[in-house]
Each structure stands twice: as C-alpha cells, then as structure tokens.
C-alpha cells in the first residue's frame, strides 16, 4: 500500500513537471523544422526560421521599442518606488495607507482593465498613443514589485547604523547616500531586474496602449501569430526562452532565486 502510494505520488510529480516543461521543449524542436507549416514531428532540419525571426522588420522594431520602454519604465519605477517605499516605511503622514493601497493595487487589478482605463484617460486628455503613455502604464504596473523588494531590504537595515553615522556628523542626505543606499543595493538590483523582465514581457495592458509606431515585441509577436502560421514564432520563442534561462541562472548566481521568489510569493 505504502509502495503503491509512493509510486503514484512519483508519477503525479513527474507528469506535472513534464506538463509544465513540455510546451517549451516542443517549441524549441519545432523551430528547427524545414517546413513552412507547424508540423509535428518535424521532418527536416533548418535554421531559416531563426534567420527570418532575426531579420523580420516588425520584430526588430518591436525589440528596439520594447528595450527603450523597458529601460525607461524600470529605471523610473526603481527611483520612484524606492523613494516611496522608504518614506512609507519610515515616516508617518496623512493618507499614507491609502497611498500605499493605490500604489500596490496593480497587483490585483486585471491588466486589461488598467490598459483600457489608461487608453480612455489618454483620449480624454487628448494624449496621443506615444511612448510616454506606454512607459507610464508600465511604471504603474511594475511599481509594486520594486516597492515590495525595497520593503524587504529596508526591514533588514539596523537603524543603529544610521544613528551612528549621524552622530559622527554625517548630514541626513549623506547618511541616506552612504548608509541606506549601499545596504539597499541588493534589494534594489532584484527589484529593478524583476521590473525590467515584467515590463519587457508585459502584453495585455500594452496591447491596449500601444499604436503601430510604439508596439513592443510581445505585441508584434501577437500580431504575427494572428497572421502567419510558420515556425518563425517558434524560432523567436526559442531564443527568448534561452535568454530567460540564462538570465535566471545569472540572477540565481548573484542575487539568489529565493529572493526573487519571495517577491513573487505574495502575488
């Protein structure tokens, strides 16, 4: 009985792991197919879809747009989120809880609701669908992740260090720059990385607020899937999966996967 249970349990775990991983593996295999139609099992080997994915104009533009938007959004979110988390954690002021609730609310508001809300607001104040609109939307979406990452690090700072520096004559600003900021650095790096990955991959809200000129890579990929059925998307997906794995291995090495996990755990 015990053995049977053990075997069943093992099978369930194995099957679930295969189920979670299978799609990525299938996509990578399909990317090397030589047929223009998605077919399984592939009948030949070619690299032409990688070449097409790499040279396809909309993907290139989407990549550039996406990187620009991600760079701005993640850096603005890092600066704004760090300051907000610092003040909320360390100071008392009226409306603090409300402000915090509003800033963290994008965690539970559906992205399509936020996307359409931002689009309507933009049209109400006659704002065109520019890069700034997309960046603003992304900053709002990723801010909670930066703030939570900073909260965790702030709680770990011993206030005695700040007092010691102040008693030795450092100005408040200097204490912040020389004591708090360096101690916060790992949390800031984790929060920034997380914000950047989320912003680069964000699709739902982005679809609502981007136009032809500002479309990001996920939006360009979505358009491609709706129009073509060849394995170009499989090739691009394989490259993105490979980059993600490399990124995660690096993040695990330098920041610790648990740290990133503890950010995600309360999603």
């Amino acid at each position, binding site marked *: *009985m015990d053995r049977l249970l053990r075997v069943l349990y093992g099978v369930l775990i194995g099957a679930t792991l295969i189920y979670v991983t299978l799609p*990525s593996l299938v996509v990578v295999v399909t990317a090397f197919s030589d047929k223009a139609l998605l077919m399984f099992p592939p009948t030949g080997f070619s690299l032409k879809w990688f070449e097409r994915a790499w040279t396809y104009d909309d993907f290139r533009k989407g990549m550039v747009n996406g990187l620009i938007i991600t760079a701005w959004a993640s850096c603005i979110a890092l600066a704004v989120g760090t300051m907000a988390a610092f003040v909320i954690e360390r100071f008392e002021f009226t409306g603090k809880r409300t402000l915090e609730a509003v800033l963290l609310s994008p965690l539970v508001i559906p992205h399509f609701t936020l996307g359409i809300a931002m689009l309507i607001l933009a049209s109400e104040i006659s704002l065109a669908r520019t890069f700034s609109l997309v960046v603003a939307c992304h900053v709002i979406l990723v801010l909670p992740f930066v703030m939570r990452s900073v909260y965790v690090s702030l709680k770990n700072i011993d206030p005695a260090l700040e007092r010691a520096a102040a008693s030795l004559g450092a100005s408040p600003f200097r204490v912040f720059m020389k004591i708090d900021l360096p101690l916060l650095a790992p949390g800031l790096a984790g929060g920034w990385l997380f914000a950047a990955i989320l912003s680069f991959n964000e699709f739902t809200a982005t679809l609502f607020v981007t136009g032809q000129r500002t479309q990001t890579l996920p939006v360009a990929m979505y358009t491609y899937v709706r129009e073509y059925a060849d394995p170009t998307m499989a090739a691009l997906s394989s490259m993105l999966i490979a980059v993600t794995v490399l990124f995660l291995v690096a993040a695990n090495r330098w920041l610790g996967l648990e740290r990133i996990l503890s950010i995600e755990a309360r999603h």
Partner: protein
Amino acid sequence: MQDRRPAYFAWFILPSVFLAVALVASLASLFQYSFREYIPGSIKVGDFTLANFGRMGSWVYLRVFIDSLLLSACTAAANLILGYPLAYSLVRSKSSLLKSTILITTIVPMFTGDIVRTYSWLVVLGKNGFINGTLKAAGIIDTPLELLYTPLGVTVALVQYSLPVMVIILAAAISHIDVAYEKAAASLGAGPLRVFWNVTLPLTMPGILSGTVTIFAWTLSAFATPQLVGGGKVNMISNMVYQLGFSNFDFPFAAVLSMAALALIFAILGLMSLGMRRLERVGLH
C-alpha cells in the same frame, strides 16, 4: 518605525503621489465612460446614460461571465491538485536535485512572458501539433483531436500559466508546518494518508485557501491565453472587452465589462480575507 531624519525627506513621496493620481484618474475615466452613450462607428462618446448597464443582462454577456467563472474555477481546482504534491516535494524532499528541478521548471515559464507561453500551447495543441502529430504517428488516431479553441485546451494552457504561483504560495504554507506534528502522528500509528489528511492538510488550509482564491482571481484577468488558445470560440471577460473596444469601438460597454470584472475580483479577494480571518479564529494556524 519613526525615522529621525528631517521632515523634508517625506517629499521623496511626491513622484509616487503623481503616479497614484494618474492611476486613480484612469480608473475614474473608465468609470465615467461606462455611463456614456455609445455612438456606433465612432470612437467619440455621447451623453450620459444608464443604458450600458442594461445590456449586462443580455445572455451573450452573462454567458461570457459564467464561462469565465467556470474556467477560473476549473483552473484553480486543477492547480490545487497538481500544485500541492509539487509544493510538498519542493519543501520536504531530501533530494536537492528534485528540489532544484522543481524550482527551475516552475520558475522558467513564469518569466518567458504571456505570448511565448501561449504560443507554445498552440504548437502543442494544434491540428498538426505535438499531441495530434504524436498520436497520429503512433497510429492511435486517424483524424486529429479538437484541442485548440475548446474549453479543455484553454484550461490546460491556463493551468500551466498559473501553476508556478500556486506552487510558491503552497510551498510557503507547507514550510511553516513543524515536521514534529507529522512525526508525532506517524509515531502514534497513523499511516501516511491519514497523517496527510488529519495533520498536513488542515495545517496548510490557509495556504490552500489563499492559493486557490488567488489563482481564481488571477485566471479571471487572463487575456492572452483565452485570446489565442480560445481563438474567439472560448471567450473570457477580457476577450470581450478587447473585441468591444477594438472591433466595434464600443468603449462605453467595454468600460462597463471592465468595471464589472474589477468589482468581481475585489469581491472575491474581500471574501477571501474574511475567510482567512475565520480560519485564524478557529485557530488552525
């Protein structure tokens, strides 16, 4: 904690206040739009009206809400069944190889993004995709199975999408249980199933509740998966909102549906925190 720094430091909050105002303003304009008259064929909206809310009662839209709730419920249930053993092994397994395998396989799909993840399912479930291709090559079927554009296909893709989050929430709950309780039960003669049923399961109830509800709410806001795997045949609220907005330019009614989805999610999360408080009172945790 009170900081001893001078009060001017509090002005660091200003940029975030600006963002909060933008967020509230966008939700307010969404709210405002839901009361505006739809002018067919135009992106402009007319006067204030309550007519949009009356359309919510139409069967087409009720059906989308029911379908969304059913898909989310199935997804949450499947997540619990598949996620619990994974989370348990992630916390309790003695093999670090198994632990890191679970951690990595769980994490990677979470970071590849909606589109890559959803597209992968098109390749797996398609007419000539992995499943049909393999079954055909093995001689098990002649005509391809209908997997894409069905509720089953959408659920299969949705579960994979949310499983990482479920595993993380459950793993956190399981790691809080003292192993001594389980050992004590076992030493008193309870078999593994009984230990699980009478000790582990009740102790992880708060995690199970918060995980299931979180996944339920999360799935309700899914867009890319039902959009591509559902292919217009399986529609969730998000797909209806997108279609109303960008095919019919009916932004007022799209606003009504978005507000309804938002209200639904807030209600669900509110009920969950009530439930959590009750669980805490009962003293299970």
